[in-house]
């Protein structure tokens, strides 16, 4: 739920509020790529997908354009998309959950139908899909993050409190045989979006990398240029592969300011700004898509390994992307505060209530409602 509540507008439409995107080679079969979009964090048992929203995965081939300090990707122009839409629920299942039918529109125009919460999901040629309520795979201690930012001092406890412990999300899982379903590769850039359906769908939210909008962009107080600007709704409305030049400077300034703040928390500078006044990570993070190498086998911890290898000028060895069980908050705080080789920072939360499995649909079954659990 790294992107939950990532802008005021999303608050009004919980079923359109994207919390996380994951992309990983199938642990069961390296010919398959798996994409996961989570929405509606902390959702209760009656949660369903909106019938007015298109839930979309966008995938483009991507190349490494530069390595070393100027490391950069260039995304290709060709793109394929998988769109998920849902009906108004019809009745209640034996589990007490609403019965909702959905469909996935594949890039070649096929429709794969399914019923939410059905673990078998739906299947078409080279494609398998699941949608429904599952256990929240993300874990973090929000209070200690806020305290760290407020005080400017690392505030994590040896044993933290998982803010998301025992909560559920709505998830969409897409498993596809990448060599057949995608164009180009094996390096791909992936984003997910929610769009208001209609003649001309309007983007509500988009997500690529984790914790860009919340941990990296949300704090206003360090930004000397746009101190009053709630930047996230604007950022959400952008095309991830074609960010408007007019606003890019505002995102860059905010990112520079916040990354600079994090770097200073341990009292030493691990990320000296370049001659243009930019943090070394700003450009690559604002290329806000998950990059995955579909030719590499599954790995437990692989997020940002491709980017790190690019900075180091060496070939990457993992698929990159993002696996469901990665301890992302430890990774990002270590990276932002201590640099590539600094001492690891632990936020005191090392896992969710239930880890995801390595078989479809991967995310653990939903947790019982709190009153039932009690």
């Amino acid at each position, binding site marked *: 739920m790294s992107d939950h509540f990532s802008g005021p507008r999303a608050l009004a439409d919980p079923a359109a509020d994207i919390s996380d995107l994951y992309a990983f080679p199938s642990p069961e079969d390296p010919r398959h790529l798996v994409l996961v979009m989570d929405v*509606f964090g*902390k*959702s*209760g048992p*009656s949660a*369903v997908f909106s*019938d007015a*929203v298109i839930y979309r995965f966008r995938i483009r081939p991507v190349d490494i354009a530069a390595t070393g300090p100027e490391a950069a990707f260039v995304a290709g122009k060709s793109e394929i998309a998988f769109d998920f839409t849902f009906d108004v629920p019809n009745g209640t299942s034996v589990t007490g959950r609403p019965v909702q039918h959905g469909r996935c529109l594949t890039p070649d125009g096929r429709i794969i139908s399914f019923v939410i919460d059905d673990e078998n999901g739906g299947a078409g040629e080279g494609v398998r899909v699941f949608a429904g309520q599952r256990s929240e795979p993300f874990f973090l201690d929000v209070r200690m993050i806020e305290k760290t930012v407020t005080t400017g001092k690392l505030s994590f406890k040896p044993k933290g409190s998982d803010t998301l412990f025992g909560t559920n999300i709505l998830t969409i899982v897409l498993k596809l045989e990448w060599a057949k379903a995608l164009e180009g590769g094996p390096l791909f850039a992936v984003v997910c979006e929610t769009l208001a359906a209609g003649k001309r769908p*309007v983007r509500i939210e988009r997500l690529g990398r984790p914790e860009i909008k919340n941990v990296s962009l949300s704090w206003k107080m360090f930004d000397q240029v746009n101190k009053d600007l709630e930047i996230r709704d604007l950022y959400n409305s952008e095309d991830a592969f074609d960010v408007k030049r007019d606003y890019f400077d505002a995102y860059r300034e905010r990112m520079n300011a916040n990354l600079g703040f994090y770097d200073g928390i341990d009292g030493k500078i691990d990320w000296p700004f370049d001659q243009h006044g930019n943090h070394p990570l700003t450009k690559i993070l604002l290329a806000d898509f998950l990059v995955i190498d579909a030719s590499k086998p599954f790995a437990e911890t692989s997020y940002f390994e491709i980017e790190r290898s690019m900075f180091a000028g060496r070939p990457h060895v993992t698929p990159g992307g993002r696996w469901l069980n990665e301890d992302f908050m430890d990774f990002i705080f270590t990276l932002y505060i201590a640099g590539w080789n600094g001492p690891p920072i632990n936020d005191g939360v090392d896992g969710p209530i239930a880890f995801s499995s390595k078989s479809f649909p991967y995310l653990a079954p939903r947790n019982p409602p*709190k009153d039932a659990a009690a």
Partner: protein
Amino acid sequence: MTNPCENFASDSRVEPLTLTDGSIAVLNLQAQIDGLEGCDTPAEAASLIDLLMLRGLILGRISDYERAAQLADRLVDVAVDDAAAYVTRGRTRAVFHRFAEALDDFDHAERLSPDDDAAKQERATVLQALGRYDEALSTYENAPGRAGRFQNAAALTGFWAEQGETVTAERLYLQSLGNYRGISPLPLALLDFQLGVMWMRKERLDQARSYFEAAIRRVPAYTAAQGHLGEVEAALGEPEAAIARLNPLAISSDDPDYAAQLARILGEMGRNEESLTWRRRAADRYDALVTAHPAAFADHAAEFWLGAGDDPQEALRLAELNLQIRKTPRANELVAQAREANDMRAASVRRQ
């Protein structure tokens, strides 16, 4: 006859809105509330309180308002330096017409966070409820950074609708629809409802019906819209339709307004026994609510005792209490009606 949806659709500058089905919106409102139960951060507690109040508004559940108020008191206890906590509590106090205490909370929030717009906006809502219209309007019109946005246009729609300025209210209503960028049907159904109430007070029942029906199309479970539509149907000479609409509301809701309306309509139809049953039910509930929240229910209870309750003295007592709390034209009118009813009752007794 005004059809709000046709008006909007005929505006060639904008496309029809794409909105989540009303049944999904209510399921997901419930899911948000369930998901936040037992939350441990002040921000989440404030969200839970707001959602409970929204559910109270849509489903006509006074128990949701009561729970929100309890949670807000607790929130302020644990987040004494948090401006948002005071804004949230002020909002719950305003719902129960504890306007002076609500304004104290907004003052406190502004002292803690002078640049925060939330307290200013909420203060305007209370000033409007108190009949301090010039001050409220000034705040709405000068809301920083909100010009042209849905929230501000919607607030102004409600303001002018309450004043009975129908042309301005309808213009702002259309502007609000044009500015809306969300997909939840709930904010728009609330707007439809406000316009419906405006036309109802003007006794333009066809227009009122049209807006209440629009609200119900967006959110079928919108209890207050269903209840008011029932009233309109009765006034338009369709009492059977009104009874069919009000009966389930009167059974399920903890708001006695629906039982009161049902008692009145059944009484007017001469179905006195049934009317008496609903009258007793409404009277008991109003007594309990006036005891628990005198400021909040004085006006509605006064209307009940003036009508189906048939107790003009109690109506006058409550109408005068309501006027002490807020000196709005409607509060004055209610006192006048209660006095007139008492005079008529006294004259009737003298004749006997």
